[in-house]
């Protein structure tokens, strides 16, 4: 962490807001119901679009008659796939660095074949959503059902027809990694444990459904798109490409976004169709997914089956890990990030906290006729963590060792960094040992074990589960850019000092509730010396912010924050140069604190910024000759020395299993996490808690259930169970700080941590509770069915 020109680092600037629990400035508006989500944007002449979606998992569209629908009241247009294809070109979700990854061209509206239940193939635009839905019912369609590939286990069998005949089979991608001598390690092991883990398919269920409003102003040649989305510049680029527009003709605005979690960073056919319809109809068109179509058309995630084994020495050293992952991704690899990333992350991350040297992994990604899957919060992490942490508990039990001790024994020591993980990932600085020690004290591990033993004597079955994990954050261009995707890994911030002494900061990272704007305001205030209440932050607008990637993969604070810090420092330098000229002082002897230029050594005020602003903007004639103030500064940042900033953490769960009913009660959850510099504990702690609850959702409740014909069986909020307050535990969060030296602010991401570790902690706790009964679960979600089956009660 380098010192700046005032000799002070990021962390010890006077009046620093860093590390303080500052409430988010933009939250008050949301608390008053004054947020502006896409559905709240009012425009004239608005058309509402509703989509006809496939009721079949796989079928040919034999006939489609829209005449009656076009005659319905309020209907503006009814558009089919071939009609839309004249305006919007198809896409293929592959990337160059995933060698061998295959998919097929995907259209905004399916042309003549539908490939999953929920795929849109016809659109109605009407004066109201209700009238559009009325007209959907009047469209006549005739289908010729085709064989559906539903079960990923049989997708690769020769008897299973390929979904896209031109690909020959249903294998979209395969990766094999073989490090060290795995066979020898297993041969020499004292103990080998093996398990098959199943991870149910689930989905994001953002409370604000996906929404997009596209307004084509033909006279201006301007497509303005209000979008509930994480990456406005990416959307702009893709709209340009597929609608044949130039960058200057497309503006994407992402104001308030009601949750995203990776759901809202992909290209969706219905959203592309909405933009194309606006072009075709030369008027604004709005699509707001309703909840039922969200379940069918939002990306799904997980859906993995992993068979894995781990070799141990008699002393409890992990010797080797060997795993095989199979995942089903739906009929297309999703554009532009592809659907191979989760499996790839599983290979990269499994066993990542530990120092074994022998590792073999195979991941196969198969196509199937279900909703497409793609990157969703903590991509691959919960799978990788569950596999390794589940096997460690099995090994510890077989060896008669305490599971906490086995982890302490095997983690890569805190003094071993920088180093590489066994999968080849580059690790700058992690803190597994410190995190484990902190967790142990925080949860009173020994006390809990005593309580557990006492309660067992009374027939109460409680369990303690642990999960150490690593997390990918601050991605560089290594994530997507190197594969040819036009997804920006760099971000920028522009800060302007206004006459009254306040600043406006425009950033290319975006806000979906994490507190991005609040963090940027804290950093800008700290860097410029302007009080935080005089910092305004603008985000989510391709026309008014620097170019950048937006917010995904835990990059907002670490990358956007560093850009803001550098821009703030540059602006401070510019301001002090002018102040020095006016005050006839060495700029290096001055600083800005609390909105005033001060003498850096004594803190004595020399001139308020408002006076400086008055002179610069309204009486530039009085400035010393040759002084040209530049009260706007822009800086960009991208991590260069590491492809990713890995972070680490460890979670613990304490549960009680009712061994008669199979019900699991979550008693308490702990997380110690190391995201480098903690910019705002208030924000990071609740983000981690939210991630933990999201992880618990997958571990215990959430599951997209399909029947053998590929019908989604539980696509409503009454049937798809999200975690609610009544069942969730209180969650304690603590931090270890290993700042990254890649940036001056030293911040890494924290958005995936909770979800990465929670399922493994909870499932391990359940198994710990069940252990005296000889029962064990390995299939998520762990429902009463699963527990009762394990107990042999049903």
């Amino acid at each position, binding site marked *: 962490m380098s010192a700046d020109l005032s000799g002070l680092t990021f962390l010890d600037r006077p009046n620093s807001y860093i590390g303080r629990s500052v409430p988010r400035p933009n939250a008050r508006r949301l*608390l*008053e*119901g004054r947020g*502006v*989500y896409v559905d709240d944007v009012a425009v004239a002449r608005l058309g509402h679009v509703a989509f006809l979606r496939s009721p079949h998992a796989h079928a040919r569209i034999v006939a489609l008659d829209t005449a009656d629908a076009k005659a319905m009241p309020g209907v503006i247009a009814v558009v089919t796939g071939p009609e839309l294809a004249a305006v919007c070109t198809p896409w293929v979700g592959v990337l160059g660095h995933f060698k061998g990854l295959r998919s097929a061209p995907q259209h905004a509206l399916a042309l003549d074949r539908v490939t999953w239940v929920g795929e849109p193939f016809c659109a109605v635009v009407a004066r109201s959503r209700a009238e559009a839905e009325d007209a959907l019912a009047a469209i006549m369609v005739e289908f010729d059902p085709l064989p559906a590939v539903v079960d990923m286990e049989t997708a690769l069998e020769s008897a299973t027809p390929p979904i896209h005949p031109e690909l020959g089979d249903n294998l979209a991608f395969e990766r094999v990694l073989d490090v060290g001598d795995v066979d020898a390690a297993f041969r020499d092991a004292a103990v080998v444990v093996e398990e098959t883990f199943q991870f149910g398919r689930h989905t994001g269920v953002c409370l604000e459904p996906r929404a997009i409003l596209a307004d084509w102003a033909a006279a201006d040649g301007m497509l303005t798109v209000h979008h509930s989305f994480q990456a406005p510049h990416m959307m702009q680029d893709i709209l340009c490409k597929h609608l044949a527009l130039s960058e200057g003709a497309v503006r994407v605005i992402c104001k308030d976004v009601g*949750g995203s979690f990776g759901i809202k960073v992909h290209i969706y056919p219905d959203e592309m169709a909405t933009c194309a319809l606006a072009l075709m109809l030369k008027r604004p068109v709005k699509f707001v997914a309703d*909840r039922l179509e969200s379940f069918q058309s939002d990306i799904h995630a997980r859906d993995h089956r992993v068979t894995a084994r781990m070799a141990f020495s008699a002393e409890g050293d992990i010797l080797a890990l060997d795993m095989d992952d199979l995942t089903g991704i739906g009929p297309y690899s999703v554009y532009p990030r592809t659907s191979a990333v989760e499996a790839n992350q599983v290979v990269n991350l499994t066993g990542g906290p530990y120092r074994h040297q022998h590792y073999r992994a195979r991941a196969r990604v198969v196509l199937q006729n279900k909703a497409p899957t793609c990157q969703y919060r903590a991509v691959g992490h919960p799978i990788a963590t569950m596999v390794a942490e589940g096997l460690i508990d099995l090994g510890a039990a077989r060896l008669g060792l305490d599971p906490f001790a086995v982890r302490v024994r095997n983690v890569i020591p805190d003094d071993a960094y920088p180093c590489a993980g066994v999968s080849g990932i580059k690790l700058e600085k992690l803190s597994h040992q410190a995190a484990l020690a902190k967790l142990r004290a925080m949860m009173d591990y020994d006390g809990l074990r005593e309580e557990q033993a006492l309660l067992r004597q009374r027939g109460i079955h409680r369990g303690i589960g642990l999960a150490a994990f690593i997390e990918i954050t601050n991605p560089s261009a290594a994530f997507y850019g190197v594969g040819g995707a036009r997804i920006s890994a760099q971000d920028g911030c522009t800060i302007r000092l206004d006459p009254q002494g306040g600043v406006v900061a425009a950033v290319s990272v975006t806000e*979906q509730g994490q507190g991005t704007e609040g963090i940027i305001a804290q950093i800008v205030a700290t860097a410029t010396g302007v009080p935080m209440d005089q910092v305004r932050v603008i985000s989510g607008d391709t026309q008014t912010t620097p170019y950048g990637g937006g917010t995904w993969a835990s990059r907002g604070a670490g990358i956007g924050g560093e850009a803001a810090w550098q821009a703030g420092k540059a602006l401070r330098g510019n301001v002090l140069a002018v102040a020095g000229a006016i005050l006839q002082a060495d700029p290096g002897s001055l600083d800005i604190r609390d909105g005033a230029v001060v003498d850096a050594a004594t803190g004595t005020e020399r001139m308020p910024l408002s006076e400086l602003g008055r002179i610069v903007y309204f009486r530039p004639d009085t400035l010393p000759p040759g002084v040209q103030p530049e009260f706007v500064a822009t800086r960009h940042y991208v991590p260069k020395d590491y492809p990713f900033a890995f972070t680490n953490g460890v979670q613990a769960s304490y549960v009680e299993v009712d061994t008669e009913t199979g019900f699991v009660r979550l008693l308490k959850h702990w997380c110690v996490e190391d995201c480098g510099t903690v910019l705002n504990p208030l924000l990071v702690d609740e*983000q981690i808690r939210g991630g933990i609850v999201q992880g618990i959702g997958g571990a215990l409740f959430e599951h997209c259930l399909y029947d053998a014909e590929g019908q989604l069986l539980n696509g409503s909020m009454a049937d798809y169970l999200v975690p609610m307050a009544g069942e*969730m535990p209180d969650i304690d969060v603590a931090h270890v700080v290993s700042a990254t030296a890649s940036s001056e602010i030293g911040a890494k991401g924290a958005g995936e941590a909770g979800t990465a570790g929670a399922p493994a902690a909870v499932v391990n706790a359940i198994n710990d509770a069940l252990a005296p009964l000889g029962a064990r679960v390995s299939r998520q979600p762990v429902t009463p069915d699963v527990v009762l089956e394990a107990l042999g009660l049903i």
Partner: protein
Amino acid sequence: MAPESPDRAHAVAFTLNGEAVRAHVPARMHLGDLLRESFGLTGVHLGCEHGVCGACTILVDGRAVRACLMLGVQADGATVETVEGLTESGRIRDLQDAFHTRNALQCGYCTPGMLVTATELLNDADAATSREEIRAAIAGNYCRCTGYHAIVDAIAATAEARRDGPKNSRREAAE
């Protein structure tokens, strides 16, 4: 003035956030859409339109209800309050402050419904407000962002402050 005869749309009159209002409402339009589209009350968020997520929760005649599960025509004669009205009246300022200082919201989409649900809980003088009871009371309001912990903190702190505060300020807050 009840619409006693069948029709596909009806004239309704009701009290909305303290103001007497009128509207002509298609029978099929639910109250959430009516409030959003005819009155611009976009703090009424639609998250599922089948009564499960709680984002559209509002007060009708002082009680929390799902705006998506009442028809707009059924507002006729009722007193309806949304987060906008509760905000303007200042009645939940303490609750909003508690949410703000504890960061009991992230994306803000669940927040209006969560505040309304908490308002009803806090107005109920008999309601016990242990963490477990608060969790049960908000168990019908889905939040994907926070993990609920801070929301429980904020409601518990508000309940405690109202309990411990001067009697008159508590009455004011509850009015």
